[in-house]
Each structure stands twice: as C-alpha cells, then as structure tokens.
C-alpha cells in the first residue's frame, strides 16, 4: 500500500475554553506539497486550531494525524519533531542576536555552541540556495527589515526540519511588494514538497496563492473548497454566514473648508525618538483623508499628536480655530471640547478599560461633562442612560451598560468606542485602525458610519494598515514611510501597486510625489 499524500489530518477535533466552544468537531485534511488557506473571522477558532497542532493547547477530543502517524503534542518540541514549524504573527526572535544565533536557538546542542553554529551555517547556506531565502547570517535581527525577519522565522522552521509550515497572518506587517516576495518563497517551498498552511483573513491572498481553502465560522469548519473553484464573495459569505458588501458605495465628496491644517510637524514618540518629520496636510470638511503606511512608520505617533496625547517638537496644527505648537499644547480633553473625536489605534490599551463596565468605558474622556455631573456628584443613572442610548445607536451587543467591557467581542468593543466618539457630534474625527480585529459584519457597519460622518460634513483623518480599507474609504490618501510623507494620491486614482511603492518609499521620484501634496 502506498503512503497517502495527506500531510495533516484532523478528525473531530474539539476544544472548549470555559463557555467558549473554540473548536467544534473540526475536520481538516491538508495534502502534502500544497498551500492550504484557512480563513475565518476573528474568534472563529483558527488560531486555537493551529495552537493545538503546535502543542500549545491540547484538544479535548478528536484525533490528529501528521504524515499518517497519530499525533498528540503537549509541547511545541514534539510538534517540531513531527515536522511542524510555525511562524507567528508576532515574531519570536531575539532582537540583538544575529540571524545565525536566532536560528539555532532551542537546538544549541552541547555545552559550547561553536560547533552547532558552524553546522548551522552550512545548513542555512544550503537552505537559502534551495528555496531562494537569502539572508545575511551575521547581522543582528534588529537591523533587518520586517520582511527579512519573517524570512528568518521561516528559515528557523526549515532548519529544524519542518515539512509543514504554519503561518499566522504573515502579511499583516508587510508592504504589498514584500508580500509578493513572500508568496514567491511559498511557491519555491511548495515546489520542494513543503506543505504550507496559511491563516489569514485577507481573501485576496487566499485567491492568489492557495490551492485549497477551508473556512471556519464560530468554531466550526463550514466549508472546504478548491481555490480555483471559488470566489471571494462566496468565501466572505461562508465566513459570516450571510452576504456582505465588501466595497461600500459612497457618494461624491462635498468638500468644504479645512478644519485641520498641519504644518511641518515634527513629533517624538513616548520614548523621545523622532518618529515624524516635515509632515504637512489638511483635512477638510466632508472628506476622508486616509493615511497609509506599514505599521510603525510614524502614523501612530502622528495620530497621538493630533489627539493631543503627544506634544509637537516642531511645526503647528491649526484645528477648529485653535493653534497647537510646541509652545502651546492642547490636552486631549481640550481638544475634545473643541469637537475633535479620537478613536485610538490600540482599542484594548487606550480606547477602553477592560475591567470597567461598558458605561464607564463609554464615559472615558467625557467624565467632566456637565450633563453627567451634578456638582461633585457623577450621576451613575445618567452615565448608564447615556451608555444605553449610544449602544442602541451603534447596535452594540449585548446592550447592557453594566457588563464588563472585556466581556464584549472585539467588534462590539470597537462599536462602543466609535459610538462614544461619534455620538458627541464632533467636527473633526481622528480614527486609527477602525476595523482591526473586528469581524466582517461589524466592518461593514463601521465603514458605513464613517462615510455617514463624512457626508455630514465632518473632517476625517483615517489611519489604517489595511490598504484595502484606506482605498475603499478615503477621498484623498497620503502615504507615510519612515516618518515622512512619501506620496499623496486621490482616492479615486489610488492603486495598490503605487501605494505599495510609496509605502516602501521606492517611487522613482519621491520629490514629484511630494509635489502633488496640497
């Protein structure tokens, strides 16, 4: 009997976390030498499933076979021995170690590492040649670009003998060009017989590079498809169980006067490092200004300065008739009183307090509001009523102001934060990553609300790492790389390739792109 060509087979794998049925009798078979995509909303159970494969969790019941052998891992070590390698969303690298040192980490061998370093060097050179994964071996990881760091993670897996590579949202931190490079590596790996499991929520990637795709919804595996025989609409529908509008229609922008004018901004981050320089732009009434860029290129710092959290070191911001400069700061509360709403990038840390009740999270930033206080008394009843009304307006579920904020799903937490900021009828909205970690149904809702605010004549500054989001919402797009503006384009004219080049600051004549700035 010939060996079957199934690399990984899951039969009725079941996993509970308390009340949550994270994996409900999941079946999956992945063919050797293919690229298999797993899609699903946040919380659909993809990561749990992969963590079971990688030995972080143990399944409550069910059977797992890896290359036809029964498999039950209680640590990642066993998974590595079985030939499974994992590349996490957040890299597990030691920044100040060299590439070579990082690769042998965990398989150092004897008391002295000289020998294993030498062996690793030979092996890595071979792997790099075979798969087109060239990386300089003696450079500290912190000096590498994100794309290169990811290569190191992949090399680590291969060096440890992985025949199955699991990648969790690998393109989240990459420019489109870097993603393409990654997909080229996938092809090379596949040709050498490596099996790849790709977890993502980006349907475009699934369509482009996978051979098979499995869809998860609410802990269940709801469909298996051959990629060539499906389309993004069908997959999206399978993911959320109903039809969704991926592209939201919006009317033509009715652009009014500028409400926020930023001139030559220079901003340091919390650690005092210069992250933004020479940034100038305008946000006008009735338009959405999108700020694109790979995570960590100064957009987050800019957003915090616009919201009054970080001071400027140079330049000025004119906002609602007031001027912010290095000498005259406005704090977040003063800005809020001027009509500037801020939806922070980091929902969990900044936008809400997990242990607070929903009504208290809905109070954040407005605790001094005269409508909610009577003298020194902060009226609980009014706070709760206010929360209930904004919950209704934004369809936050469950609509219970007393529930602890952490007990809401990501999408509902985000809706609560948006409701808090939008329902005060601000004039300028500064919005960071409005749909990060939010399920598709809520994404549609949130984007519609943002467009509604635009149509109501508000000026909106939108920062997002999702290019697709920037492109579908923005009337105008500026691109940041390394703290400077590397390009400005009209929303209607934007295409992913140009934006990608700008995000990497690799456009032929960046000066020209800057010239287009208004």
């Amino acid at each position, binding site marked *: 009997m010939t060996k079957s060509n199934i690399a990984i087979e899951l039969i009725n794998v079941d996993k509970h976390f308390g009340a949550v049925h994270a994996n409900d009798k999941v079946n999956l078979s992945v063919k050797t030498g293919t690229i298999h995509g797993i899609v699903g909303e946040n919380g659909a159970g993809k990561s749990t499933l992969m963590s079971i494969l990688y030995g972080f969790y143990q399944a409550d019941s069910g059977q797992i076979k890896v290359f036809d052998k029964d498999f039950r891992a209680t640590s990642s070590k066993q998974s590595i021995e079985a030939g499974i390698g994992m590349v996490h969303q957040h890299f597990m690298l030691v920044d100040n170690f060299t590439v070579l040192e990082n690769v042998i980490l965990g398989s150092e061998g004897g008391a002295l590492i000289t020998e294993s370093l030498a062996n690793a060097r030979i092996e890595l050179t071979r792997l790099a040649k075979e798969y087109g994964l060239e990386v300089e071996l003696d450079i500290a990881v912190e000096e590498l670009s994100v794309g290169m760091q990811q290569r190191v993670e992949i090399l680590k897996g291969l060096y440890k003998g992985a025949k199955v590579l699991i990648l969790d949202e690998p393109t989240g931190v990459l420019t489109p060009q870097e993603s393409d490079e990654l997909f080229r590596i996938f092809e090379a790996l596949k040709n050498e017989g490596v099996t790849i499991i790709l977890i993502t929520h980006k349907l475009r990637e699934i369509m482009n590079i996978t051979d098979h795709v499995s869809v998860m919804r609410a802990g269940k595996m709801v469909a298996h498809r051959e990629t060539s025989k499906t389309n993004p609409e069908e997959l999206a529908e399978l993911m959320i169980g109903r039809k969704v509008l991926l592209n939201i229609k919006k009317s033509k922008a009715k652009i009014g006067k500028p409400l926020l004018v930023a001139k030559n901004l220079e901003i340091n981050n919390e650690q005092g490092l210069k992250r933004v320089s020479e940034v100038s732009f305008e946000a006008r009434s009735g338009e959405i200004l999108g700020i694109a860029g790979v995570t960590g290129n100064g957009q987050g710092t800019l957003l915090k300065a616009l919201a009054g959290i970080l001071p400027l070191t140079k330049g000025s911001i004119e906002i609602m008739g007031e001027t912010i400069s290095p000498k005259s700061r406005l704090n977040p509360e003063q800005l809020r009183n001027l009509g500037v709403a801020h939806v922070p990038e980091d929902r969990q840390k900044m936008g809400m307090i997990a242990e607070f009740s929903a009504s208290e999270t809905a109070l*954040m930033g407005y*605790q001094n509001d005269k409508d909610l206080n009577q003298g020194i008394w902060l009226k609980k009843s009014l706070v709760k009523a206010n929360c209930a009304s904004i919950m209704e307006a934004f369809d936050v579920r469950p609509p219970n102001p007393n529930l602890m904020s952490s007990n809401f799903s990501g999408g509902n937490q985000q809706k609560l934060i948006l409701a808090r900021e939008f329902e005060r009828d601000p004039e300028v909205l500064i919005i960071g990553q409005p749909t990060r970690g939010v399920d598709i149904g809520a994404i549609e809702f949130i984007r519609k609300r943002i467009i509604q605010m635009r149509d109501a004549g508000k000026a909106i500054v939108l920062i997002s790492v999702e290019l697709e989001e920037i492109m579908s919402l923005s009337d105008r797009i500026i691109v940041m790389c390394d703290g400077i503006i590397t390009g400005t384009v009209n929303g209607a004219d934007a295409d992913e390739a140009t934006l990608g080049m700008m995000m990497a600051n690799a456009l032929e004549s960046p000066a020209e792109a800057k010239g287009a700035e208004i």
Partner: protein
Amino acid sequence: MTRDRRLSWINGLLLPLFNVLTAFIATGIVFLFIGVDPIEATKILIYGALGYDEGLGYTLYYATNFVFTGLAVAVAFHAGLFNIGGEGQAYVGGLGTALVALYMNPALSAWIVIPLAISGGLLFGALWAIIPAYLQAYRGSHIVITTIMFNFIASSLMVYVLVNVLREVGEMSPESGDFIEASWIPFVHDVLANFGYEVTRSPLNMSIFVALFFSAVVWFFLWHTRWGFAIRAAGKSNEAAIYSGINPKKIIVVTMCISGALAGLVGINELMGVQHRLFLNFNYGYGFGGIAVALMGRNHPVGILIAAFLFGILYQGGAELDFELQNVSRDIVVVMQGLVILFCGGLEYLYRPVLIRYLAPVEASE
C-alpha cells in the same frame, strides 16, 4: 441568580471568608505545635474580643485605627499605587494633630478645636505622602521604595521632635505635654453614660464615627465623582487615562495626598481620643496592618470595615490569650496576622476554581 452575580458573590464574600477560615485553621495548627488547645484558645480569643463590653470596646477601638489605614491603602491601590508608608504617614499625621491640640487657645470650643486638630492630622499625613508621590510621578522613583524609606525618616523625625522640641522641661520620657481639654474626643462610655447607659470603661471613643464617616466619603468619592473615576481609570491603564484627558502624574500626587491624609487620622483615635498627648510609636503596626485590612477588604470601604473589625478582634483577642495562657505571648497576634495576609493576599484565589466549579459552573446557554 445569573452567573455574573454568583461570581461577584464568590469573589466578594465567599472567597475572603474561606481564606480567613483557612488562616484560622493554620493558626490552630500553630497552637497545637506550641501545646495549646486550639479550641480553648479560640474560645478565649472570641470571648476576650466580643464576649463582654470592655473587650468589645477595645476591639472597636483597635478596629478604628485599621479602618483609617485600610482606607489609606485602598485609595492608593485604586490609582495603581502601593502605599506602604501608612506607618509613617500615621505617625507624622499624629504630629499635625498634636500641634493643634497642644497650642490652640484652651478657651476655644471643642467644636472648633476638634475639627482643626483632625485637619492637622489630615494635612500632615498628606504632606508626608506628597514627597514620595512627587518622586514617583516626576522622577520615576518607585513609590514602594520611597514610602517605606519615609517610614524610617518619620520615625527618626518623631524621636527628634519628641525629645528635643515637644518634651516638657524636667520630663524624663519622650512625650509631649497634655493636649488642651477642648481637643479631647469623648469616650463612648462617657457619651453613653449621658444617655443613662452604663458600660465599662474602654478606650473606644467617638473617633469610630469619624472612621465610619470617612469610609462613606471614600466610597462616594471613588465611585460617584469624576475625580474618583479619574483615579480608577489611571489605576487601570495609564494610556487610557491620558487618552481620556486625565494627567496620571497629577493623579499620583493627589491620590497619595488623600491616602496619606487618611492614614494621618490614626492620631485622632490614639491621641485625641485616648492618650491626650503625643508619645513615641503610638502608630506602631497600624500602617502595615492597614495593608492586610485593605487586601482582605478587597479595597472596598465595606470590606475594609469588616476586615478592620476582624483585625480588631485579633488584636484584642490576642491580648487576652497572652494574659490567659502561659505559653502564648502577644506576638501570636503577629503570627495570626501573617497567616491572614498569606491566605487573603498571597493565596487569594486558592479556592476560586473549586468554588466556581460547584457554585457557578459554566452554562453553555449563557
């Protein structure tokens, strides 16, 4: 009852109760080791603390101090600060109280002198907390380190003040002269006698009502004012606080002042209520005891009242044990206190998984 309610009952009531019981059982085992019958000891302890009016008076008198220091720790805790300087703040607060109570015009009415002397305690306690607070907020020195060092400084300062400044000429012991009579807070037995109720003398004085009053104030302040909201927000997340327009540095300073002020009230019970003079180490043990009280009371005023009462029982009952039993010394109180802290603080969640499994199991439908 919904699961959420059950959970809050488990966390708020059952868990502390089980923890305290475990601490008592552990204490019982210690008793067995030193050859004391634990049941006999428990009887003495309970009777000594609660069984007759004088004992109960002492218990409540000790509890009053623990309420003040417990509230102090709790307020700081809500801002994410661990104030272990209650000992020093209580001590220096006592100096503030004493200065008013020694040097006010003796002809003034008690209705003026007592509030002023209380304010003196609040003010000096706050002042003693403000330096560590400033250092934490603006210089990054950790408040746990600075407050504990300030306890030592307070101790030295008070020795200096008592020996060189406040000690009366010709007096041998390091203590001040008598407070003016208008600053004396009446004993509860005297007040009750006015109404015709005879109870045995005990140090219990009307300060206990000050303690109850401040418990209510703390409760209202933390959960029903915008400042309380700001303190709790800053305590949970620095970033979220800044986002909400709250300045966490200011919060640190203000909260520590409130915390220190509350600790500074120990003096009114000890000095204005009982001794009517300032003397060495009147604060001894209450500052640290307050940490345990706040821990046990879950940093909530109601919990703190209960925990302070329990600690009052331990103090008074422990003194009785010392008196009644040959091979038990007063230090057994410290052992019991230590065990209570161990089980209520360190092993806080020991029974949680078991209690949840049996009393609030996960229901799939919810």
